């Protein structure tokens, strides 16, 4: 029995040491990515290419999801608000929900699933097929050439995707509330306009989406770069990217909301 307890204790200690080591390695990787980012801006077409892969190719899922989320908000909002005789406020509810929370958070979750997993798998496979080693042997720094442009591509894409999600979501809410249910169009837009504050709601939403973009892209790139060069290793890394990114988004959202909207 004491032997078993000692074994369990050793295992816990080993996992703790590994966790700390990995956190340190990830921080170093993130720092190196930032320090070696010059090429991403000097040869901006490399970053533009990544904006296309991570941003433009994610547009379909973002637009369709944004539309449905907005439509559901319109339906649910109207159902609740009409009980209190304020169904015209549905525009405000849809817009504030999207710009403050759902736009940045859901867009980031979708971004992690679609673009983050793709980044991890791509870099993991580049490692498994020795493309990263080949680059190093050609005296080309893979962090600067491969990781940097993908990082900045993701960071630039994320707020644009979140903005697109919110805009399409508002349009979805409009379709349901005004076109389908018949809420007054003037009240829908004017109440929204007076309730949504540019700095408090829009800017804070953009800040959130930038933070989520940094977190998701950094996690995805690190997991890919650190993936064991096997099929199992790459698939495990891809799964970790989605799980870790999703948890990071939700955790960061709570912290940011506490600071931005509750005056903590």
């Amino acid at each position, binding site marked *: 029995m004491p032997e078993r307890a000692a074994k369990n204790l050793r295992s816990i200690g080993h996992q703790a040491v590994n966790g700390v080591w990995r956190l340190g390695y990830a921080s170093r990787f993130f720092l190196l990515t930032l320090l070696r980012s010059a090429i991403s801006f000097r040869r901006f077409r490399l970053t533009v290419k990544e904006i296309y892969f991570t941003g433009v190719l994610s547009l379909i899922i973002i637009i369709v999801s944004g539309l449905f989320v907005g439509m559901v908000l319109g339906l649910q909002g109207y159902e609740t608000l009409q009980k209190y005789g304020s169904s015209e406020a549905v525009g405000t509810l849809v817009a504030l929900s999207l710009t403050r929370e759902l736009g940045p958070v859901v867009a980031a979750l979708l971004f992690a699933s679609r673009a983050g997993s793709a980044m991890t798998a791509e870099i993991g496979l*580049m490692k498994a*097929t*020795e*493309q990263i*080693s*080949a680059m*190093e*042997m*050609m*005296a*080309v*720094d893979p962090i600067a*050439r491969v990781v940097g442009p993908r990082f900045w591509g993701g960071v630039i894409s994320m707020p644009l995707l979140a903005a697109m999600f919110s805009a399409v979501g508002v349009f979805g809410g409009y379709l349901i509330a005004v076109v389908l249910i018949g809420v007054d169009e003037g009240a829908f837009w004017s109440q929204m306009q007076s309730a949504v504050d540019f700095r408090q709601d829009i800017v804070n939403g953009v800040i959130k989406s930038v933070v989520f973009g940094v977190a998701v892209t950094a996690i995805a790139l690190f997991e890919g770069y650190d993936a064991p060069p096997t099929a199992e290793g790459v698939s495990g890394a891809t799964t970790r990217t989605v799980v870790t990114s999703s948890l990071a988004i939700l955790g960061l959202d709570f912290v940011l909301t506490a600071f931005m909207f509750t005056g903590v």
Partner: protein
Amino acid sequence: MWFRIGGLQAARAPMENLVEIKDVSFSYDVRPVLTGINMTVPRGKVVSIMGLSGCGKTTLLRLIGGVLKPTRGEVRVAGRVMHKLGQDELYEMRRKMGMLFQFGALFTDLSVFDNVAFQMREHAELPEAMVHDLVMMKLHAVGLRGAQALMPSELSGGMARRVALARAIALDPMLIMYDEPFTGLDPISMGVISNLIRRLNDALGATSIVVTHDVQETLRIVDYVYFMSEGAVVTQGTPEEIRRSETPFVHQFVWGEMDGPMPFHYPGSSYAGDLALEAAGA
């Protein structure tokens, strides 16, 4: 025949060594991979490092490329100790090296043309017209000028290896390293690659190191051979000396004998024991 090894050796006076490996040992964590390796690779020669899979050949290439650092000893390339170089100096040295990886390691998102042009665009600020001409010359040298627009996924194994070879010689390196260049190739592709290794080495005035276990194909083209086993050099010599070698391990390896110093069976418990015959007999 387009080259003669004997004639080549006679034509070249003894030259300084491009690569010198002195008493090198290397371990992954606590597992020793290389112990006390000594090798020299003279300029202009094609030298092969042979041995069974897992004997440390690829690790040795990585030490020469400065990817790994030896736990003891030193690797000198062109007189410079690789593991003592800083990042900038190391990259400067690697620009003078080319490496062909086991399965080519072509960049899958780039076309054949862009793969070969990769280093030129990264390291040399050349006009695009010049890059085009240089890439055409490299692809012509490996017989794949017509495949310039293809993507790596559209190439056969042999073609991918030739494109990787064109990429490895893109900047006319002084040292070309080949990591298992014949693995998985059909006999025709194997012959093409081996001829290219020799011909490009001589045409570029480069020095080549070929890590392989394809004995007959390699002995045809190289000037000198090092044989490794379990992380150490067990024998060395010219191809003719290797063919005539009576060293049991080398003899078994060169002639592909099933049993010898390297046993057919992986070490384990007794066969009778595994079949529970010993217990039954008892």
